[in-house]
C-alpha cells in the first residue's frame, strides 16, 4: 500500500511529461491542418504567450511573488537582441543568450530591494519600476526613443531568424520556446528549489523552520523567471521585426503576460498554456472584430470574459480537468 502510494507522485510526473510530449507533437503538426494565414499568426502569438505566462508562473505561481513588471524583462530581451543585430550584426542566437542573461540579471536586481518589502508592496514596486523604465526608454535617444527600431530584412536566414514570410518558421520557433519553458517549469516542480519555492509561497514561517532561506529563494526564482521572459522578448522582436517601448515595455504587456497564468491556474503546470490558449485568441479576435475604432470595447469584452472565468473557476481553468482526480484522491484519503 505504502509502496504503491509512494509511486503516485512519480507516476503523476511521468504522465505529465507524456501528455506534454503528445501536445508537442500535436502542435508541431498543427500547421498542416491550418492553412489560413491569420489563424496561423494567432497560433504563433498564443505559443509565445504560453511560454511567457509559464515564465511568469515560475516566480508568481510557484514562488508566490506576483509581478506586474514582467514587460521590463521582455523589453530588455527584445532591445538587447535587436540592438546587437542592427548595430553590431550579432546573430539573435547569441542575442537570445545575452537577452536572457540581462533580463534575468534585471529581475535579480529588481528583487534585491523589492523582496525586502512584504506582501502587496512587491506587486506595487514591480508595477512602478516597469512603468518608470518604459517612460525612460521612450525618451532615450540611443535606443531611438519612442520611434522604435526596425529590423531590416536582408535575406532568409535561420541564424538571423529572418524569413520572407515569418509565420511558419516562427510557429516552430515559438513552439520550441513554449516547450522549453514548460520543461523548465516541470523540472523545477520536481526539484529541490521547486519544493523550497512552493514552501515559501505557502508559509514563510514554516519554510524557515525547515531551514529554507526565503530571500535567496525568491531571488533565484526571479532570475530564472526574468531570463525566460527575456528570451520571449528576443523572439518577439525578430518575429515582428519592429520594436518600440509601447509594444515591448508597456504595463498592458505586463498584465497580458500574467493573465494567462492567473486565469489558467496559478502555480500549475498546465494553467499558463490553457490560459494562453483561451485568452490570446479571444483578445486578438475581439481587437480584430470590434476594432480599435470602437474605442476600448475590445478591452471590455476581454475584461468581461476574465471576470466570468474568475467567477466560474477561481482556481483557474485547470480545475476543470483536476476536479475528478482530486475527489478520487480524497476518497482514498
Amino acid at each position: 500500500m505504502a509502496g504503491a502510494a509512494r509511486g503516485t507522485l512519480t507516476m503523476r510526473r511521468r504522465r505529465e511529461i507524456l501528455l506534454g510530449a503528445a501536445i508537442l507533437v500535436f502542435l508541431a503538426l498543427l500547421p498542416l491542418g491550418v492553412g489560413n494565414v491569420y489563424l496561423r499568426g494567432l497560433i504563433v502569438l498564443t505559443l509565445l504567450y504560453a511560454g511567457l505566462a509559464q515564465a511568469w508562473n515560475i516566480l508568481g505561481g510557484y514562488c508566490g511573488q506576483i509581478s506586474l513588471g514582467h514587460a521590463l524583462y521582455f523589453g530588455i530581451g527584445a532591445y538587447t537582441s535587436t540592438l546587437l543585430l542592427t548595430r553590431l550584426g550579432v546573430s539573435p542566437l547569441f542575442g537570445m543568450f545575452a537577452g536572457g542573461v540581462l533580463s534575468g540579471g534585471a529581475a535579480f536586481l529588481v528583487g534585491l530591494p523589492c523582496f525586502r518589502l512584504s506582501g502587496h508592496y512587491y506587486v506595487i514596486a514591480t508595477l512602478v519600476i516597469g512603468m518608470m523604465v518604459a517612460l525612460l526608454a521612450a525618451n532615450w535617444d540611443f535606443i531611438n526613443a519612442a520611434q522604435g527600431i526596425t529590423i531590416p530584412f536582408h535575406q532568409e536566414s535561420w541564424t538571423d531568424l529572418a524569413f520572407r514570410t515569418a509565420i511558419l518558421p516562427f510557429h516552430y520557433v515559438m513552439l520550441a520556446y513554449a516547450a522549453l519553458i514548460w520543461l523548465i517549469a516541470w523540472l523545477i516542480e520536481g526539484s529541490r528549489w521547486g519544493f523550497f519555492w512552493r514552501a515559501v509561497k505557502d508559509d514563510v514561517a514554516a519554510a524557515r523552520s525547515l531551514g529554507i532561506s526565503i530571500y535567496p529563494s525568491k531571488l533565484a526564482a526571479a532570475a530564472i523567471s526574468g531570463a525566460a521572459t527575456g528570451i520571449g522578448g528576443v523572439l518577439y522582436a525578430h518575429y515582428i521585426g519592429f520594436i518600440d517601448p509601447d509594444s515591448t515595455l508597456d504595463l498592458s504587456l505586463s498584465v497580458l503576460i500574467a493573465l494567462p497564468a492567473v486565469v489558467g491556474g496559478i502555480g500549475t503546470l498546465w494553467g499558463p498554456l490553457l490560459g494562453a490558449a483561451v485568452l490570446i485568441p479571444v483578445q486578438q479576435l475581439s481587437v480584430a472584430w470590434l476594432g480599435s475604432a470602437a474605442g476600448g470595447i475590445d478591452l471590455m469584452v476581454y475584461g468581461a470574459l476574465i471576470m466570468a472565468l474568475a467567477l466560474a473557476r477561481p482556481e483557474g481553468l485547470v480545475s476543470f480537468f483536476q476536479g475528478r482526480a482530486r475527489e478520487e484522491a480524497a476518497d482514498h484519503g
Partner: protein
Amino acid sequence: MAEPLLAIRGISKSFGSVAANVDISFEVAPGEILGLIGPNGAGKSSLFNIIAGSIVPDRGEILFAGRRISGIGAVACARLGIGRTFQVVRSFDSMTVLENVMVGAFLHARRSAAAMRAAGEVIAFCGLAGRQDVPAHRLSPPDKRRLEIARALATRPRLLLLDEMLTGLTPTEAREGMQLVRDLRAQGITIIMVEHVMEVLLPLIDRAIVLDLGRKLLEGRPAEIVRHPDVIRAYLGDRYVA
C-alpha cells in the same frame, strides 16, 4: 547532568509593555523529554520561538550543543538541528502530505528521489502512510499535527520543540500522540513539549519547567510539580491552596 544539549541563560523578552519572558534559565540533557507548563500567556510559545530562532531575545543567551545560537535566526537554527511545530498548525496547503514532508527532507537530500525515500520513511513512522497523496489541507486536525511532526522530523533534528501538539485531541488521539513522542525519544531525539493539560503531559515527561507570567516558577520532576503550592495557585487560584 551530563553536558547539556541546550542551555538557556537569563533569557528575557518583552513585546511593548508585555514581559513575555523574564530572566529564564534552565538546561536540557540529551535524550530528555522536558515539559514546559504554564497557564495562558505564561510565555511558553514566546520561549519556543526564541529557542527556534524566530524571535531574538532582548537579553540572555542560548547554547545548543555548546554553540551560541541566540540571534542567528530560524533558518540557521533549523540547519543546526532544531526542529519545531507550531501552536497554530502551519501546513503547506498547496502540497500533498508527501510533498510537505519532502520539503523538510530536502534540507539534507539534494535529489528528489532521495528526499522522497526519506520522506516516505518519516511518514510511515508518524502513522500517515495511507495519507501520502492527500492534499495537506484535507487532513483532519490530529493528522495535521502528525504532518507537522513528520515534516520537522524529515530535517533530522537533534532537538524537537512541540507546541501543544496534544491540545484539542480526543483521549484516544492524545494517547496515540503520546506514543509517537515516546517513539521519537527512542530514536534519540531530545524533546521539549508545551502543553496546557498537565494530566497528559506528566506521565510522558522526565522533567518539567513551570512558567507563569513570563517567569520560571519552578523546575522539577513530575511528581514534585503537581504537589507544589505555587503550581496549584497559578493554575487554580489561591483558594485551592490547602
